[in-house]
């Protein structure tokens, strides 16, 4: 059966890649929790991943909040449900759009940068040099990035939540004529701890996935500049797909009864 052969081969290759990645992830996590750890490097990565992503994530959040208010208004006006706008804005932002959009933006920014940096270090033998200087590349390069991704993403998303809700608020007050006090009261009364927490859990997972994919593809890049380019693309694409995938399953875990 000549048609089954390529399917089988692709499937086997997929299994092999999954196994390879899982092993890589397990090794990396092992090195995150065992000494020596490098606080200096973790700090530097936290700034690179967290602080420098603030403008991108903030802009994404504010426009998302604004458009959300506008769109819900035109939709909800058809059955006179305009008063639900604050609820829609806050729940969409905290549960879904905050973490997912921030995750995708950070995948483009941070995932690509990590893959390019580690990939270049691989093809210029800097990773080999690190190793011969008795420094484990997993501890020195990968663990600080994973720790920074895991911890900074929830903080970023929390800020994005606030900025996004603020965007919806601004549009509702100044364009749609809502009463500021009522809008805020609806927002605060309606939102539940679980909405925010589920969003922050997603954020942590996404932060881990983005940095993991950046490290994995960079660390395993081959050849020269072309290999690094491919690693960068693969890091962003795989991180984005994993984010959307995991988003569904985490949502199901939190809200399906």
């Amino acid at each position, binding site marked *: 059966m000549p048609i089954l052969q390529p399917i089988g081969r692709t499937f086997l290759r997929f299994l092999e890649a999954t196994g390879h990645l899982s092993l890589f992830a397990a090794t990396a996590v092992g090195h995150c929790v065992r000494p020596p750890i490098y606080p200096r490097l973790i700090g530097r990565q936290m700034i690179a991943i967290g602080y420098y992503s603030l403008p991108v994530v903030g802009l994404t959040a504010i426009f998302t909040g604004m458009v959300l208010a506008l769109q819900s208004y035109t939709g909800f006006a058809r059955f006179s449900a305009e008063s639900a706008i604050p609820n829609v804005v806050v729940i969409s932002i905290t549960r879904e759009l905050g973490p997912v959009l921030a995750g995708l933006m950070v995948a483009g920014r941070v995932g690509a940068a990590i893959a390019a*940096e580690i990939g270049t*270090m691989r093809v210029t033998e800097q990773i*080999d040099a*690190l190793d*011969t*200087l*008795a*420094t484990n590349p997993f501890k020195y390069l990968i663990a600080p990035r994973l720790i920074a991704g895991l911890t900074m993403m929830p903080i970023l998303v929390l800020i994005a939540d606030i900025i996004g809700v603020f965007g919806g608020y601004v549009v509702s007050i100044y364009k749609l004529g809502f009463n500021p006090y009522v809008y805020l009261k609806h927002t605060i009364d309606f939102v539940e701890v679980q909405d925010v927490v589920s969003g922050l859990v997603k954020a942590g997972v996404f932060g881990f996935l983005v940095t993991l994919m950046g490290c994995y593809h960079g660390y395993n890049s081959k050849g020269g500049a072309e290999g690094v380019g491919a690693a960068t693309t693969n890091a962003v694409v795989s991180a984005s797909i994993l984010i959307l995938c995991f988003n569904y399953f985490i949502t199901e875990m939190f809200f399906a009864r």
Partner: protein
Amino acid sequence: MSAPAPKIRIRGLHKSFKKNVVLDGLDLDVGVGESVVVIGGSGSGKSVLLKCILGLLRPESGSIEVDGQEVVGLAGRERDRVLRKFGMLFQSAALFDSLPVWENVAFGLIQGARKDRDQAKEIALDKMAAVGLGPEVGELSPAELSGGMRKRVGLARAIATAPEIIFFDEPTTGLDPIMGDVINDLIIKCVRELGATALSITHDMTSARKIADRIAMLYDGKIIWAGPVAEIDSSGNAYVEQFIHGRAEGPIEMQVRAI
């Protein structure tokens, strides 16, 4: 016991990448305090040999002993302990471009030997002076250096922890003849001052003659000739003859298709 045990002893080393057999039963001894140069054409597997010894690549079979200890398959702390004996100058220098030059040189001292930064910087500047680089170079980024300077920084990094064994991967390739000679002199000086064992690989015969006590030729995955540097011109080996005279005709055939 007749001869003293070699510092590095390699027996039956096999390494291939998929179908490409690179090392095919290689044997080599490097004596204590000796400087051995492995010569061989581009792509003959010289770098692969060094990477196998350092554990960066894992051979399919064979044994590599360092001070009598088997190092193939070592991992973790035990491997780190063995690696501390080594210093390596990479072909492309492989400097860390996220760190200033002095931190590159001090890297093994700070990370491996766990010295504090001020102390490590002092030693680093000292080693840089030994290879002819002033303290002002220490604050530069590796991207700002010329090829010759990069090699010298790489050399300073390789000797910074005063290793027992130093590897040089094509130390003079890509440099002008004068800078090449400067590097050769530095290698001889550093190895002598440290009393280190040196294993270098090169295809530059001038450099090989200058820094070697003993020369070994790698061809087709094996050491096909080894002997004191003085005997290289009377090796009686057709492969060696062809290589040292750089002739296109001879037993070593290049795979070149007619155009």
